[in-house]
């Protein structure tokens, strides 16, 4: 799975929605900080990446947070 696919799957699960597009805004989808913490935990546990909460707020779509995660992976590699 690509990062975008993994991230989208995590979002769909935690937001309990099926039809999230990569450009949908987390907050417009009804996302709240409680859910964001769960997503942050899933990124850590399932993808092995540490994503600071500030970055989650700055990148509030699947597309942009995936790009952030990929940029960190490149830096670490």
């Amino acid at each position: 799975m690509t990062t975008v696919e993994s991230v989208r799957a995590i979002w769909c699960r935690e937001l309990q929605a099926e039809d999230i597009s990569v450009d949908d805004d987390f907050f417009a989808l009804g996302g709240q900080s409680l859910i964001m913490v769960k997503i942050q935990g899933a990124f850590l546990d399932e993808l092995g990446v540490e994503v600071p909460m500030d970055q989650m707020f700055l990148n509030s779509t699947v597309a942009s947070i995936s790009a952030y995660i990929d940029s960190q992976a490149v830096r670490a590699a």
Partner: protein
Amino acid sequence: MILQGKRVDLPAAPVVHQRFEAHAAATPDAVAVFWAGQEVTYAELNAKANRFAQFLFARGIGRGAKVGVCLDYSTDMLVAILGTLKAGAAYVPFDPAYPSARLQLLLGQVPDLALIVASPATAGMVETADAEIVDLQEMAGQLENLPATAPDVTVTGDDICYAVFTSGSTGTPKLTAVRHEGWFNLMNWLTLEYGLHSGSNHLVVSAFGFDLSQRSLMTPLFCGATQNLMASRNFDAMMAYRMLTERGIRVVHCASSTLYLLIDWENARRGDALTRLDYVLFGGEALKVERLLEWQAREGNTCTLLHQYGVAECTDVATSYDLGAYRTGEHPVPPVGTPAYNTDIHLLDEELRHVAAGEQGEICIAGASVGKGYLNNGPENAKFTTIEVDGQPLRVYRTGDRGHVNEAGELVVLGRIDAQVKVRGMRIDPTDIERALARLDGVREAAVAIAYTEAGEAELIAFTVPAGADLAADALRSGLLETLPRNMVPAHFVNVPRLPLSPHGKVDRVALVDAHRKQNAAGGLAA
């Protein structure tokens, strides 16, 4: 019914920053603050704060003036706060996590705003014609040339030390002022009652704009300990949890909502850093107390959970309760405990007479913690009133909370006497949100109510009467996020044809929530 706090003498001038200065003199090399990988000693922090105080003093900014602080958690935030206090002025926190429009609304409510301390990351959000913005980093060279000693300013216990915003029924947030004596008394009580000492390494994880964050920020500096700050604008469970272990934290200050998130984080990863703490001091309602007790019952858990009740108008904390003493089933809700030093709880009826022992009354607070009142709202100051006790006049603050005192002599909060609600620990006036909703396009009328999820989580529901076509939840949500902090944006939006009225002619929020719940149960409405 009167519940009395223990009487403990305060110094003749109970001035908060003088206690910090005493530590700076006694233990100059102790670490005062850890932030972004750097430790700053008491001597260094004191010298920086003194220089900023000299800068303010030279500009004539002192007693009566307000200094806005719009910074992310950082060493500079403490420099700005301590420097402001040393100059004799009061600080007003502006949380950079708030939307810019909200910050602008708040700025306009501060009388005698002399200056705003900001950083390149925050300055754009607080630009105003009324006050100059300074950046401590940018003016570092200028500050270096100023004396490293505090300016000669007399500050008394009755002077304002800070003022914070609370949600208001008129749609305008109220700026409520706290006095040095109240703040000193609160931290003196925490220090002595719970044995907080110089080794009690602290971590603060609440948003800067909240009232509880003010004492969370200052308590470690008051007791000679180390404050640990996260380089994060938003609450970050991952970073907070990592700091617990890496920094050897002993005391965590947070809101109840944050505590649940930290416990969830720990449980999900089978950690034990939280259980090994000495204390968690938390404010806000402990709604899901079973979850807290379940966590506290874990083997090897040495952490004492102190749940604290109070209002911003009376220096944030009035009473404290050790949740370890609570047995589910004994009472439907845990008590909020016994009063802080020099603080009394009066339970009064509608005519401001004391109710009998065991009876319900409005919780009114008297004593050292009672604040200066609202700086921007004259009429609301009627909540600060004078009653007669044993023939003597006594100033009390009417909280609007209902409560009674149980057989053990502990205060129990039973609810509100008005429409105010608490969501994730913060007091919110629904009319504040209703006004913001009514300003959005396509909204004819709006009502906001509170409802509880199956997990016991408090949530806001907005009921909107559309002017034309039905309103989309995401449009309303985005609209509100332009002007309101996130914790005030409802979780659910429901279109209704009209707002039902109670027999008294008021919007019947209970009926709205009931109808919504029934429809949901029937599989009708999606949030």
